Every structure is written in structure tokens, then in C-alpha cells.
């Protein structure tokens, strides 16, 4: 697709039309799927966001296999233990990549340039991920899960949510882990990525004036824009 799509000049009569006009204006296809990035994106610190996404894909894929086969398979058979470990280690890498992504964005003050919602959705995604990890540890049905559940119980009771979220309730935690938490996280991640596409990747501090001057604002901007600075 070449150039921005034409936007209907007539005001939309329904909310669906308003949403369509807004998406056509602010999120054309070349911003959703850009082929080039600003020059400052050529840094290893910008890699950890997509690494986090890749780890999440692996978590969902291995988790789907575990959900279909069940604990009698993944606790006993060799292939089941392999997928169990794949799920576990993908989670470790997910958090490792996410924390480095967070460190990079924090020290870059990534909420600059009208990107507060991108930052906030990322932070909420981190909190939901911690909940997903806790419920995952609790449903292991082994000594570890017993220990973690009864340590977490006191903390959750102390903050007053123990009446609704009971880590000793295996059924509740299982359903939260395999459906509720992944569903919330999926929505948050999609919104987070769409916001990154909408506002562009945050520039380093010393490139902010380039963005303010209208250069390399969007992910579709050519690399020459910032190479000239």
C-alpha cells in the first residue's frame, strides 16, 4: 500500500463510523506493519520488547499443549515433562526480557511524547503477568505449589483480597491461570503494541528534538531522518 488512505470527509453518523475514521486517519497499514524504523532503533535495548512477545507466544503455545493433555501427562511422561519445562522456562525468559525492557524504557523515560498510555498498559501488563505466574506456580500440584500457596495466602489476606482470591482453591486458580489471566494479558498486550504503532517507538533523550521537529515520529520514518542528526 502506498501513501495514507483517503479519509472520508463527511462526519460519521454512528460510533462504528467514528472508530473507522479514527483508525483510517491515525493507524494506516504502513504504520501498523512498518518496513523501516528510525535509526535510533538499531540498538540491542530495543530488542527486548519483541523478545518478551516471542517468549509470550512460546508460553501460550506450550500452555495450550499442557491444557489439552493434563497433569497426569505432564507430570509423568517424558514428552509431558519436556513441555512442562518448556512452559516453565519460557515464563522465566518472559520475565527476564520484560524486566530488561522495563529498565530500558524507565531510564529512557518512555512516557515522553504523549506515550503515557503505552507506559501504563505496559505496567498493568507486568502486574497481570505476576498474577498469572502466581496462579501458575500454585497449580503445579506439588510441594512447591503447597509452599507458595500458603506463603501467598497470608500476603493476600493482609491486603484484603483473600476472600475473593483464594490460593488454596485449586479450581479457582486453575481457571484463572488458563483463561482469565491470559485473556486480560492478551488484550493488554494488543493495546500496548497498537499504542506503540500509533505513537511510534520512543526516541532516546538526545533525539527528542528530532521528533519534536517532525522527523522520525512514526515507525515508518526513514532511517536517514535520524542519521543526519
Amino acid at each position: 500500500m502506498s501513501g495514507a488512505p483517503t479519509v472520508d470527509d463527511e462526519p460519521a453518523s454512528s460510533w462504528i463510523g467514528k472508530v473507522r475514521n479514527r483508525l483510517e486517519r491515525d493507524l494506516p497499514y504502513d504504520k501498523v506493519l512498518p518496513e523501516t524504523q528510525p535509526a535510533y532503533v538499531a540498538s540491542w535495548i530495543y530488542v527486548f520488547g519483541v523478545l518478551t512477545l516471542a517468549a509470550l507466544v512460546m508460553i501460550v503455545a506450550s500452555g495450550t499443549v499442557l491444557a489439552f493433555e493434563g497433569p497426569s501427562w505432564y507430570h509423568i511422561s517424558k514428552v509431558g515433562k519436556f513441555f512442562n519445562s518448556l512452559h516453565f522456562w519460557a515464563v522465566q525468559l518472559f520475565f527476564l526480557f520484560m524486566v530488561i525492557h522495563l529498565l530500558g524504557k524507565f531510564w529512557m523515560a518512555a512516557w515522553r511524547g504523549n506515550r503515557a498510555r503505552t507506559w501504563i498498559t505496559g505496567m498493568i501488563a507486568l502486574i497481570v503477568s505476576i498474577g498469572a505466574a502466581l496462579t501458575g506456580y500454585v497449580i503445579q500440584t506439588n510441594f512447591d505449589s503447597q509452599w507458595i500457596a500458603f506463603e501467598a495466602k497470608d500476603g493476600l489476606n493482609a491486603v484484603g483480597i483473600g476472600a475473593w482470591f483464594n490460593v488454596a482453591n485449586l479450581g479457582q486458580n486453575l481457571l484463572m491461570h488458563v483463561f482469565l489471566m491470559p485473556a486480560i494479558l492478551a488484550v493488554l498486550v494488543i493495546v500496548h503494541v497498537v499504542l506503540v504503532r500509533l505513537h511510534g517507538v520512543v526516541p532516546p533523550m538526545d533525539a527528542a528534538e528530532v521528533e519534536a521537529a517532525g522527523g522520525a515520529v512514526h515507525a515508518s520514518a526513514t532511517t536517514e531522518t535520524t542519521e543526519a542528526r
Partner: protein
Amino acid sequence: MLLWQDEAISSGSYVPWGWLSISVPNLIVIIVMIVLFVLAITLPFPKERRNPRRHS
């Protein structure tokens, strides 16, 4: 008691540091994260290979 039971109920190794006590696996992960962060902001990123047919 059987060996595997001993391993299953052991609390693991911890590093005591004043009021702070942290398990060795957690400490290793935190150190790895800091090292990766420092490497990510210091190591040069490979330069883009330009397609000669496209840019000639």
C-alpha cells in the same frame, strides 16, 4: 528418608545480607538481568545489510 524426598522438601540455598535474605537462583537471575541490560546499552548493534539490487 529417601534422597528425592530430601531434595523435594529442602528450602534451597540463601545468601544472607543483613536484614535481606535472597535465594541463590533469584540472585543469579537478577545479576544476569543487570549484565544483559548493561550489554544491551553498550554493545554495538549489527549494521543493516543493504540489498544491492534495491539501492543501486
